[in-house]
């Protein structure tokens, strides 16, 4: 079920009303049932996979905790480590099977044919594997819980249903944020009463999320898809504009989903973490990654970068660790060389920046112009990396790079720009909407949340803002039969 579908418009109020009508002890059960219904709408069979992964990590957590209580500390530590490793292998094995079989199968077949190995191995079975929606998210979330238990940062959850809800909580199940047990599990254990302020805030946040998704992301997608899916036909500025638009498309798509999830959760009195923090105002790639997909970056930092040694083992090792983390992050996003290149490129930017800064004192009082240049430079570097991400295929990415080196400035004035599915008027709306997003994000960068500012205003101002936002979505949004309802991009990961 998609947030931007009619089904969700029906599903959400029903779940909410019943949630607040039933006794407290059944609330998490009701949310669990609703979450499984939400998930199994895509494919009922994948509900079983979700259940299996949930059960595995639940049992693993309890077992690790039980082992830890044994008197022989050395023995218990090694047993807990084995148990953790087993659970990690099983879960990551499931993830790899669904996500990388086709990718690895393809390369394996190629390798055999290149080496002229006289063995016939049929790898076509890998092509029938369909990636379950959200698997990368819920597996990372449940593994995070397991590692936290192992590290004794939290107690293992005894109530299976509550734990199952932690893994499958529907607003963030399929595209994050990848929540930490310390935040979400605790909140699930203490159901809140219906709060007027939460609902009001949730409504604002959800509406803003839908605006980002339907007015910006899905509109930009029309242009981006046209160029990227016909990469040998378009050149120069078309590719540049499409890539810049893609930067906003992916941001609004993913940020949109994250805050819709946040808004929906607020209706249930649950506060999800912020997944984005004005990333395109970053002054460096490293800062960008502290502000982009915060839950994933945090996960990789805590469960991969730090265990690898982080920055504690010298400069060179730190850079190697960074490259490993970003290459893995690229691979997490998709089973393709282009995604690995995208991840490695982001890692490379930071390694270069570290090397440059190592020999230079930090300039504490950077002027405004320099700050703007830094922001712009960072944005361009990120856009360059997005090109590989969107192309999804190295050969297409290379074609795009080759075709980009062509100057066709005339398309800015002769109207050809508006022949790629977005009319001049809707292009203007898109640019204005991106401008509004820029203003909201700038405030956020200054630590001022627009929603917090809004809820302080007079109630009638709030009413007017929400109605205007809803109508802007209805009038300028991409939905309905003339558009293919676009899934959220991060569902595929």
């Amino acid at each position, binding site marked *: 079920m998609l947030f931007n579908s*009619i089904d969700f418009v029906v599903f959400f109020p029903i779940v909410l009303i019943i949630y607040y009508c039933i006794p407290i002890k059944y609330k998490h059960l009701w949310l669990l049932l609703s979450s499984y219904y939400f998930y199994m709408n895509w494919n009922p069979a994948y509900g079983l996979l979700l259940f299996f992964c949930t059960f595995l990590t639940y049992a693993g957590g309890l077992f690790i905790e039980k082992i830890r209580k044994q008197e022989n500390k050395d023995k218990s530590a090694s047993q807990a480590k084995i148990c953790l490793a087993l659970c990690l292998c099983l879960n990551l094995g499931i993830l790899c099977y669904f996500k990388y079989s086709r990718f690895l199968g393809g390369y394996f077949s190629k390798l055999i044919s290149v080496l002229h190995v006289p063995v016939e191995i049929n790898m076509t079975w890998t092509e029938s594997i369909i990636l379950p929606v959200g698997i990368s998210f819920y597996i990372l979330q449940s593994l995070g819980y397991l590692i936290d238990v192992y590290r004794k940062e939290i107690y293992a959850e005894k109530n299976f249903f509550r734990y199952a809800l932690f893994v499958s909580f529907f607003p963030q199940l399929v595209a994050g944020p990848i929540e930490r047990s310390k935040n979400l599990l605790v909140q699930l254990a203490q159901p809140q009463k219906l709060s007027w302020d939460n609902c009001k805030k949730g409504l604002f946040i959800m509406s803003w999320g839908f605006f980002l998704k339907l007015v910006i992301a899905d509109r930009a997608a029309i242009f981006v898809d046209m160029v990227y899916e016909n990469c040998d036909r378009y050149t120069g500025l078309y590719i540049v504009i499409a890539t810049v638009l893609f930067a906003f498309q992916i941001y609004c798509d993913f940020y949109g989903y994250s805050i819709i999830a946040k808004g929906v959760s607020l209706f249930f009195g649950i506060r999800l973490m912020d997944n984005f923090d004005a990333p395109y105002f970053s002054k460096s790639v490293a800062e960008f990654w502290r502000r982009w997909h915060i839950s994933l970056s945090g996960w990789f930092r805590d469960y991969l970068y730090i265990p690898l040694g982080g920055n504690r083992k010298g400069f060179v090792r730190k850079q190697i660790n960074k490259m490993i983390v970003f290459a893995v992050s690229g691979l997490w996003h998709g089973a393709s060389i282009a995604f690995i290149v995208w991840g490695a490129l982001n890692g490379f930017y930071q390694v270069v920046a570290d090397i440059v800064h190592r020999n230079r004192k930090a300039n504490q009082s950077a002027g405004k112009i320099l700050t703007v240049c830094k922001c712009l430079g960072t944005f361009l570097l990120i856009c360059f990396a997005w090109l590989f991400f969107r192309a999804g295929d190295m050969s297409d990415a290379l074609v795009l790079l080759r075709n980009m080196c062509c100057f066709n400035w005339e398309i800015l004035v002769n109207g050809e720009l508006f022949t790629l599915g977005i009319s001049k*008027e809707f292009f203007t709306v898109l640019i204005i909407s991106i401008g509004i997003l820029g203003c909201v994000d700038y405030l956020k960068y200054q630590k001022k949340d627009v929603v917090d500012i809004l809820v302080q205003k007079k*109630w009638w101002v709030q*009413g007017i803002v929400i*109605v205007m936002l*809803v*109508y802007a979505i*209805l*009038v300028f949004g991409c939905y309905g039969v003339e558009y293919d309802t676009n899934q959220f991009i991060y569902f595929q990961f």
Partner: protein
Amino acid sequence: MTQINLFISSFKKYYKRIGKILFVMLLCLSMKNILDYMYVNYDDSQWVRIIWRAFYNEEEIDNLYLGSSHVYCDLNPYLLDELNGENNFSLSTSAQRLNGSYYLLKEADKEKELSHVYLELNYGLATGKDGEFKDPDNLTANWWNVDYMRFSPNKLEYMFTMCDKENYPETLLPFLRYKTRIFDLNYIKEQVEGKQKENYKNYEFRSENEQGQIIEFYEKGYWKVTRELSPYGLLMEQKDGLQENPLTQDAETCLRKIIEYCQEEQIEITLFSTPVYELDLIATGNYDAYVSQINEIAEEYQIEYYDFNLCKEEKLPLQSVDNFWDTIHLNSKGADTFTRVFWDVVENNQKDYFYDSFEEKLNNAEERVYGFTYSKGTENREFKIASNREENLEYRVVNVSEDGEALIQDYSTNKEFSIPYDTSGKCKVEVRRIGETEAFQVMEIMY
């Protein structure tokens, strides 16, 4: 005392919140109305707007006529009032399909004391492919109805069953149907000005062309049209051909629901099909398949079905261009003739006015050419002369264009010839019986 104060303060708090929610809802509604006023085309749905207002204003209705444009063009309720002394009302709307008729019937039954329902069954709106009722291209007619129906559970049910869920936004918010014109300032100006015109405000419509031919709307469900069928209308595309049991599953289900609803509510129901220019039925390939399926259903429920396309020509002499304004709608002259025969038939159950099949009717009618049917070839349009005889007739066809006359074929029994796609003009066809020297019919057909 403290508890009372607490109760009062919490009551005030909730009261204020409800007020705030109502304010937002009112704001939403106002925005919707403003946008509807700006974008909803005032001209397209004028008829539906007029008929729904007239329907709700009508004090009582004895005989209700449901159906598509064929009903409001072909049946004159004012003449019916004179003929039967009862109150007749035609709640007929453009392209009304049977799912629409069902909800309109329920609305009429809810609002009025009905004694008899006459349901029109046009083959064009009941055959085709399954799922066509919910096809986005066919939703406009239903949308117009729900736009002007009063709010009720029946209206809600109609709204949510008429279309797939992807179309709910456009169903609920009419201005969304005009999203492609969202920046068209001329269009907005046209709509706002159109809605400020006196005739629009007064629920009136009358248009007159240069030849003095008029179209005028009448409140009881009647279009008075004085236009005549033009030579362009005598050329029709050959349809795929109706198969056995050609009603779509949707249409059959709705038809049965309508009949069963009437029988449960003890409202008499009669089914009928209005007469069309026979070229239209010849182009269907097998109209009798449709007639026999409706007859079977009517027999099953023991109700009457009158297909006036099967009516004997001497009883209903309509097959000339001066009775139609297009091939499927009668003009006011044809409507007056038809309305009288219609009431005679339904009142006196004049079964002997009808042939058993359309084929039988064609064979018994005078030899005649109705026009041309055509199918699309690779390079040419393949024309076929539509007549009611397979033998005994010879045709001479002449192409008349700006360059002069060119003979396509001299008198011959051949009915088929080709015309290239990128040409337009006029064909003159002369028809004579084999063995005779003089043509008994000359017809000009524009293409």
